[in-house]
C-alpha cells in the first residue's frame, strides 16, 4: 500500500509553484508553463483522490478532459503570445501594458 495521501501535498506544492511562476516570471511563455503546472497539480489531485473512491473512475476521466483542455489552451495561448510578440517584440507581460486606466 503506497502512501497515496502524500500525493495531494505534492499537488498542492506543484500548484503553488505554478502560481508563483505565473506571478513572478517576466515572460509570457513562462507564465504558460506555470499554468500547465497548475493544471498538472489538479490532475495529480484527481488521480490521488480517485484512490479513495475506487468504484468509479470519475477522477481518471476528468484527467483526460483536463489534458485536452490544457492542449487547447496551450495552442490558443501560444498563438496569442506570438501575435503580441509581433506587435511588441516582447513577450514580457510587464512591457505589454498600454491598456491601463
Amino acid at each position: 500500500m503506497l502512501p497515496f495521501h502524500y500525493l495531494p501535498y505534492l499537488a498542492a506544492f506543484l500548484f503553488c509553484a505554478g502560481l508563483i511562476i505565473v506571478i513572478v516570471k517576466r515572460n509570457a511563455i513562462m507564465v504558460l508553463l506555470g499554468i500547465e503546472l497548475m493544471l498538472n497539480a489538479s490532475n495529480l489531485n484527481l488521480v490521488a483522490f480517485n484512490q479513495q473512491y475506487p468504484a468509479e473512475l470519475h477522477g481518471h476521466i476528468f484527467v483526460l478532459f483536463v489534458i485536452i483542455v490544457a492542449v487547447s489552451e496551450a495552442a490558443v495561448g501560444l498563438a496569442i503570445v506570438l501575435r503580441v510578440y509581433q506587435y511588441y517584440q516582447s513577450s514580457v507581460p510587464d512591457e505589454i501594458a498600454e491598456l491601463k486606466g
Partner: protein
Amino acid sequence: MDNSFQLLAFITLLAPVASFITVCLIAVPNPKTISFISIFWMLLSFVSATILLIAFWKNQPLVLALDWFIVGDHSFSADLALSNRSILMLVVVAFISFLVHLYSAAYMEGDPDWRRYFAMLGFFTFSMQGIVLSDNLLFLFIFWELVGFSSYMLIGHWTKKPEAGRAASKAFIMNRIGDAGFLVGLMIVWATYETFSITEILLSPTTSTWQSAASLCIFCGVIGKSAQFPLFTWLPDAMEGPTPVSALIHAATMVAAGVYLLVRMYGLFTEDALLVVAVTGMITTIIGAVAALSQYDIKRILAYSTMSQLGLMILAIGMGVVDAALLHLLTHAFFKSCLFLSAGIVIHALHKAQPAHLHFDVQDIRNMGGLKTKLPTTFATFLLSGASLAGVPFFSGFLSKEAILTALVTHTNLISLLMLVVIISVSFLTVLYTFRMIWLVFMGEARTIRSLTPEEPSWVMRLPVVILALCSLWMLVSWNPFDFKGWMLPPAEPSSYAVWITIFSVIWVGVAVMLSWYIFNRGQSKTNEALRNGFYVDKVYGVVLGVVISTSSSAVSFIEKRWIDRGIHAMVYVQVILAHFVAWVDRVFIDGTVNGTARLAGLGGKITRSFQGGNIQLYIFWAVFAIIIFIIWAIK
C-alpha cells in the same frame, strides 16, 4: 346704535387705507391732486372719528367682534375695542395725521416720490389707528409691525441719502428686536390663555410666573417702539426722514403707541414687571433730557426731548399712574408735533432761502438765531408749544405733568420718592433745553444766516401749526388752568397735596426759566460784561451747571455713541463676523466634507485603480490574494 359705531369705526379705520390705495393705484401725474385726495380721506377719517367720539363718549366699552381666521378649533379674531380711551386716541391720531397731511402738501412740494410719501403716510395712519382700536393682541401686533414698516419707508423716504437708508434700517431692526420680545410675549399669552382677546386676557385671573414673563416680553415691544432704554438710539437717527414724518410718527403717534399698549395691557403687568417698567422709564427720561441739552441739531433736540417725555410717561405707568400718563400722552402729542412742524417750517424756510453757493446745515441751531422777526408766526407757535413742553402754567403740558406728580406724591414709598425727584429734575432740564432751543433759534442775532431772508411759508403749512399751537393751551385739558381734572380724567378723590404741588410747580418752572434765561442769554450775548461779572452766583451756577451738565451730557452722548450704539454696532459686527465664520464653516467643513467625500471617493477610486496598473501578473496576484483573504476570513 352699535351698528352706527361700527360703521364710524370702520370709516375712520379704512379711510386712510383708501387713501393708500387710491394714491398707489390711481395714476395721477399731478402731485396736487394726490395730496388733495389723501387730505380728503384724512379729513373723512378725522370727521368720522370725531363723530364717533361725541356719540360714544362715556358709553360702556364695546367690542366689535370680527372673525379673521380659524386654525383647528381656535379662532383668531380681528376684534375692535371701542372705549373712551381708544376713541380719544383715535381722534388724536386722525387729527394730527390730517394736519400733517395738510402740512406735507406744501412741505413736500417738488419731491419726485410724492406718491410714495402720501401713500405711506396714509398707510401709517391706518396702522396706527389699527393699534389703537384692536382688541386682539395678535391683531394689534400686526399693526404694530406695520407701523414699523411705514416708519421705515418714511424715514428712508429720501432714498438718495445713504444716511436715510441707514437710519431707516436701524429703526426697523431695533423695533424688530423689541418686537421679537413682543412675539415671545404673544406665545406665552397664547400658551397660557389660549386667546389673544385683550378683554378676555385682562379678565382671566392668572398669577403664574408666566404672567410676569408675558408682561415683560410685551414690554420689550414697548421699549423698541417707544424708544426706551436701551433701544432708543434709532429715534434721533430717525430724524433723517422728512420733518412732517417726524412730527407725526416720532413725536405724536407711533412712539406713543408703546405707552398706549402699556396702558391697554396694564392689567396684565405684575408688581415686579411694573418695577422694571418704571426703572426703564426713569433711565430713559434722564438720558433723553440730558442728551437734549447738548445737541445742536434742532430735530435731534426734539427727538431726545420726545424720548425723555416718553420715558416720563412710562415711568408714570410703572408707578401705576395710568390715567395721568395717558393724559400726558395726549398733550404731548399736540405740543410735540407742533414743535416739530414749526421746526420744519424753520428748516424749510432756511432751505429755500439758502443760496446755492453757500451750503450749511439748515438744521444746526448754531447757524440760526434771530428768526423771531423773520418768522413771527412760527416763533409764536414754537414759543407756545415750547412752553407747553417746559410745563409752563396755562399750558397743557403743565397740567399733565402736574397730574403725574400729584398721583406720585400720594404714594409714600422710597421708590416713588426717587421717581418724584427724577421727574422734578427732569422737568427742570426740560425747561433748560427748551429755552436754549428757543433762544438760539429765534432770539439774538442772526449768525450764519445774517444775509438770508427766510420767509414764512404758505398758509397751508402755517395753518396746522397754528391749530396745534392752540391745542397746547390749557383748554385742551380742562377749563381751570390749574386743575387737571378736566373732561378727560375721571374725577378722583380730592388730594390735599394737589394745591401744594401746583404752587411748587409754578415756582419751580419759574426758577428754571429764569436760570435758563441767564445761562443762554449770557452765553450768547457777550456784550453785557458787567452783568456777567455782577453775578458770581451766576458764574458758579454757570460753571457748575456748565461743567456738570455739559460733562454729563457729553458723557451720556459719548456713552450712547461709544457704548450703546457701538455696542449695537459691535453686535452687528460680531454677527456679521459670525455670519462670515458660519459661511466659512459651511464652505470648508460641511461643503468641504461633501467635496472631501467626493475627493475621498476619488482617492478610493485611485487606490482601487492602482491595482489596475495594466500588469496582468499583479492582477493575478491580487485576485489570488483576495481569495486567500476570503478563505481566512470565512474559516476564522
